[in-house]
Structure formats: C-alpha cells, structure tokens
C-alpha cells in the first residue's frame, strides 16, 4: 500500500495555506468552491477498500477511513462549509477564512481518522483554529471568552490524550480506532475528554460563554463542528454506555430551561446546542442501531437547522447591531425574509412535521420507547416543549412581531449574500423533512423507519398546540430582562476574580508600596547628603545650600593641631 491517503482534511489544510495568497474576492470564491468540491468528493469516497496507510516515524497512521457514519458527517460538513462560504461572501478577513478552513480540516480529520493519533491531532487543530473565530470579533469580552474557551479545550484535550495513551499502552500499542475503549480508567478519561467537547454539564460553560461572543459568520462553523464531531466520537467509541442516557437527558432539560430566561439571541441558541446535543448523547447511551441512527440523524439535522438559526440571528445582528431581545422588536416588517428563514429553523429544531428535526427526534424517541425508557421518553418530550416555547414562540415573538413601532430601531441593509445561504440551509431542512431518505442515506445503519404515523402526528400537534396556549397565557412573564444568567462557570470565574485581586492586584499593590518606600528613602538620603552639616548645626544651617568654604580648617586650627601633637610627643617621650 504505497498510495497516499488523499483525505479531505489534507485538501482543506492545503487550501488554508493557499488562501491567504489569493486576492480579495477570489478568496471567498475559493472558500465556497472548496466546500462544494469537498461535499462532492466525500459523497463519492469508496467505503469498501482497505484504508491507505501513512507512515510517520514508526507509526502507521490511517488518516482516511470511510464508512457510513463518517461519510454522513463528512457530507454535511462539506455542505455547511459551502453554505457558510456563501454566507460570509461579503467578508474580507484572511484570518477568519483561514481559521474556518483549518477548523473544517480538523472536523473532517476527526471524522475520517482511523487511528487515535490522527484523531487527536485533528481534535487539537479544531480547538486552536476555532478560537480564532471568537477572537476575530475583536472586542474585550470576546477576547476574554476566547481565552476561557481555549483553556477549557486545552484541559479537555490533555485529558483525552492521557486516556488515549493509557488505552494504547493497555492494548499493546494498537492505535486503531476499531479498538474500543474499555470501562476502565483510560476509557473514562477518553470519555471525559470527549464530554468537554460534547458540552455535557457541568463541562458546557465554554460553549454558552464563547459562542455568543464569536463573529457572526464564525458562529455557523462553531455550531457545526466542535460538538458534532464530539457526538461522532461518542457514537464511534461509546455506544451503549448507560451513564450517557442520564447525562443526555439531564443536558436536554438543563439547556432548555436556560433558554427560557436568556436575553441574548445567540445565547439562547447556544443553550439550545446543549439541549439538542443532550438528545444525541442520550441516544448514544441507549446504543441500539435505531438509537445510533437517531443520534447521527439529529447531529446532522442540527448542523443544518441550528446553522440556519445562527444565520438568521447573524442577519438580525448585521441589520441592527444588537443581539439582546430587550433591544429588539418589530423586525418582521423590516426583515420579512429573515423571519421566514428563522421560522423554518425554529420549526425544524422543535420537531414540527415536514422538517428534518421531526424525523431525527422521532427516531431517538422511538428508540427510547423500544428500549423501555419511559422517563427518558417523557423528559425528552418536555425538552421539545421547551424548545418550541423558547425558539418557536418566545424569540420570534419578541424579536420579529412584538412592539412593532417603526423607527424604533435603526435597521441597516444586510449583505445580499446572506439570503442564498439561508435558502440553501432552509431547503435542506425542508427537503429532509419531506423526503426522509435524504437524511437516511447519511446514517450508519440501514434504516427502516416511518415517522409520519397518525399516532405520532396527533401527539405532536396536541403537545405543541397546548404549548402555544401556555405561551400565550404567560407571554408577559416571558418578556426578556436585561440581565446575564449565571451558570456553573461562576464557580471558577468568581474565585478567579478573588484570586486576581490577591495574586495580581495584591502583588501590584505590594510593588507599589515598596516603590514608594524606596523613593521616600532615596529622597530623604538626597536631602540629607545635600548638606550634612545642617543636621549638626541645626540653628545656623537651616536652609542654606552646602558651602565647602564654610568648613575648611583655618590656619589657627592647624597651628593648634601641631602644638597638640608636639605636647603629646613630649609627654610620652623617653625620660
């Protein structure tokens, strides 16, 4: 096997190297075409042949191993890269474009990795390049959030590497990913490292902290890659680990209840990532082929509809420069098309019939029912109620429909390329909902699933219909307030403020104090040595500057001295 493994990740790495040398608009074209080309390439990657091997030092790496699961993720990654390229077509920012390409290279590298070392390499590439998409916003809060983000991922990556190394050691040096982690320390370490990227509470704060602070275009890639590759790794390595059922269900509810009270629109979307990834994590824990199909389907559908929601939220921000619900309102008249695209995303994520979220959620819920987890089934349905409540009703009501006073909010023209990108994503959500085969062919296991049953449709329409009634009754209470919401990151951010006060401010104050002490001492010494005689003859010398002539010995003193010596010599001389 001498053939070079031409992984999509390597193509993107090469693309990221070439991109900075292209002039202005060509970079955007290059980016988008690269995404579309990649999508096509991944679609036609052969699955059956044994994977080519890349020799690096004494290791035999497998950077390109294709099966149904990895191809599904690869296809959707390529799609979102192309759509994101169109969405960012107006942007002239080499740094962000390069970072996005590297980030996509990392995501595709993880998905197609056939060994643990390749997986880890691309995993870390994602962490570093994605941070740039947060910092590229170029304000103080983004900078700080980006720092917390990279620290979190450095720790998570370290734990992952520790787990991988001890796993490989226990397996006598076998680095193949088909070698699943066992339920021992190394397995749990790998799971912990992946749990950071899956944003399983309490390890989720990097997401809800940093994503709302990312650039408008960066958020689309952030949503698509980090958590979804983590779900991919969970499906690959941890299918059937029961703890994940509990973690996922808790996550789905934890995320959704925060969305009810969050003010920032991209903050709401970020908490919804936590909530939706909860469905996937729970499905991985259930571990049956239907559940794993559901987890993959929901991850892929999520990249599309959540990407669409982030695009619509970005359009609102581009138009108004504002992302807080308290400052928005009445945007339907100004941005009617954005409203329509937003609603497609919102109905998809809530799981409305005719949209892809309905298919993927039904798969997970059916899997829970078939494996006899009634509590999981009910609680995930409750999360769906919350999703519809906050994204389908609260956010659009207060952003688009409520308080429709024209002239309230200055609304700028948004770049024209935002619309075709949203059309692409919305169309994908709709087509997958109407023709589920478009989703099924991307899944790891063969699918025989019929979501559109009468029973299921009555269930959903009753549930959402009455959620609407509850919303209408309490809509006054749901009005956003201009506050931030604390999360478990309080437990390190607040002590960090205290630690900063002691370690940084305290040290600075100590330096300041010693500086002032030394300066005072020096000043004293200077004034003392300017005229030491002043301290001897206090009354006569008060403020006079030093005059050496005043203290020169006189002739009489000299004679007196000579006389004194003479007398001593006589007195002490021999008798």
């Amino acid at each position, binding site marked *: 096997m001498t053939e070079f493994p031409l992984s999509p990740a390597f193509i993107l790495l090469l693309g990221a190297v070439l991109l900075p040398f292209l002039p202005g608009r060509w970079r955007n074209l290059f980016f988008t075409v690269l995404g579309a080309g990649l999508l096509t390439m991944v679609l036609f990657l052969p699955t059956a042949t044994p994977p080519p091997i890349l020799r690096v030092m004494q290791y035999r790496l497998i950077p390109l191993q294709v099966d149904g699961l990895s191809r599904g993720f690869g296809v959707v990654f390529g799609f979102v890269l192309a759509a994101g390229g169109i969405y960012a077509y107006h942007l002239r920012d080499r740094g962000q474009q390069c970072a996005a390409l590297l980030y996509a290279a990392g995501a595709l590298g993880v998905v197609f990795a056939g060994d643990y070392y390749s997986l880890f390499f691309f995993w870390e590439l994602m962490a570093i390049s994605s941070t740039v998409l947060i910092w590229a916003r170029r304000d103080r809060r983004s900078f700080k959030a980006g720092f917390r983000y990279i620290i979190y991922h450095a720790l998570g990556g370290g734990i992952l590497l520790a787990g991988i190394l001890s796993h490989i050691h226990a397996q006598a040096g076998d680095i193949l990913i088909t070698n699943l982690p066992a339920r021992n320390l190394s397995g749990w370490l790998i799971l912990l490292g992946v749990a950071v990227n899956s944003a399983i509470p309490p390890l989720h704060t990097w997401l809800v902290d940093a994503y709302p602070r990312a650039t408008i275009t960066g958020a689309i890639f952030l949503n698509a890659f980090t958590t979804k590759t983590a779900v991919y790794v969970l499906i690959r390595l941890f299918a059937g680990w029961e703890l994940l059922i509990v973690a996922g269900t808790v996550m789905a509810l934890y995320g959704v209840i925060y969305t009810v009270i969050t003010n920032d629109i991209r903050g709401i979307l970020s908490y919804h990532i936590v909530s939706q990834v909860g469905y996937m994590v729970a499905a991985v824990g259930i571990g049956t082929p239907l559940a794993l199909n559901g987890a993959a389907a929901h991850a892929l559908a999520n990249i599309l509809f959540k990407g669409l929601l982030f695009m619509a939220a970005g359009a609102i921000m581009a138009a108004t420069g504002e992302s807080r619900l308290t400052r928005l309102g009445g945007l339907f008249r100004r941005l009617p098309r954005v409203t329509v695209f937003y609603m497609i995303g919102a109905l998809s994520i809530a799981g409305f019939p005719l949209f892809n979220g309905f298919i993927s959620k039904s798969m997970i819920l059916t899997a829970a029912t078939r494996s006899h987890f009634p509590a999981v089934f009910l609680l995930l349905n409750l999360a769906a109620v919350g999703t519809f409540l906050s994204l389908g009703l609260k956010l659009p009501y207060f952003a688009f429909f409520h308080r429709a006073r024209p002239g309230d909010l200055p609304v700028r023209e948004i770049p024209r390329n935002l619309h075709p990108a949203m059309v692409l994503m919305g169309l994908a959500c709709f087509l997958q909902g109407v023709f589920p085969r478009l989703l099924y062919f991307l899944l790891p296991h063969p699918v025989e699933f019929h979501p559109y049953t009468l029973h299921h449709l009555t269930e959903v329409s009753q549930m959402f219909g009455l959620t609407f009634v509850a919303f209408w009754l309490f809509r006054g209470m749901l009005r956003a*307030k201009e506050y*931030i919401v604390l999360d478990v990151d309080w437990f390190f951010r607040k002590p960090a403020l205290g630690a900063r006060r002691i370690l940084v401010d305290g040290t600075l104050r100590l330096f300041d104090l010693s500086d002032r002490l030394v300066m005072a001492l020096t000043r004293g010494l200077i004034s003392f040595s300017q005229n030491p005689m002043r301290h001897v003859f206090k009354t006569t010398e008060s403020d006079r500057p030093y005059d050496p002539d005043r203290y020169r010995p006189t002739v009489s003193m000299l004679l007196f001295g000579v006389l004194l010596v003479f007398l001593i010599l006589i007195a002490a001389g021999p008798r």
Partner: protein
Amino acid sequence: MRRVLWTVLALIPAASVVVEFLGSHHAHSHYWFSEIPLFWILFGFLGGCLLILGGKKILAWIVYRREDYYD
C-alpha cells in the same frame, strides 16, 4: 388574516383530538401514561407552564445578574 390564523391554530389540536378518539389505540400504547385520555394536551400545557414558571420564577431568581457582573 389574523382571525384565519387563530382559527387554524385552534383547529389543528382540535382535529387531532377527534382523530385520536376515532382512531384505534394500538401498537404505541406501551405505557400507563399513553392510556390517559388527552395526555398530550395536558403534557403540552403543563410542561409549558412548568418551564415558564420554573425558569422565570425559580431559576431566574437565582441566576439573574447585572450585565457587568463579571467585569
């Protein structure tokens, strides 16, 4: 226009209730709760109320802070 929308909104759950009672209960009735009549009507309404009140009255009371809290 507005009245049409409201009517459609009311008709969909109403129609689904009718369908539920006309249709046969089979296959999916795995659990005790699916035997309760109008279960999903109750679930949607009570679930919605629970999340709104739980979020806005309890969670918000604990976690709301001024925007410059961490600065």
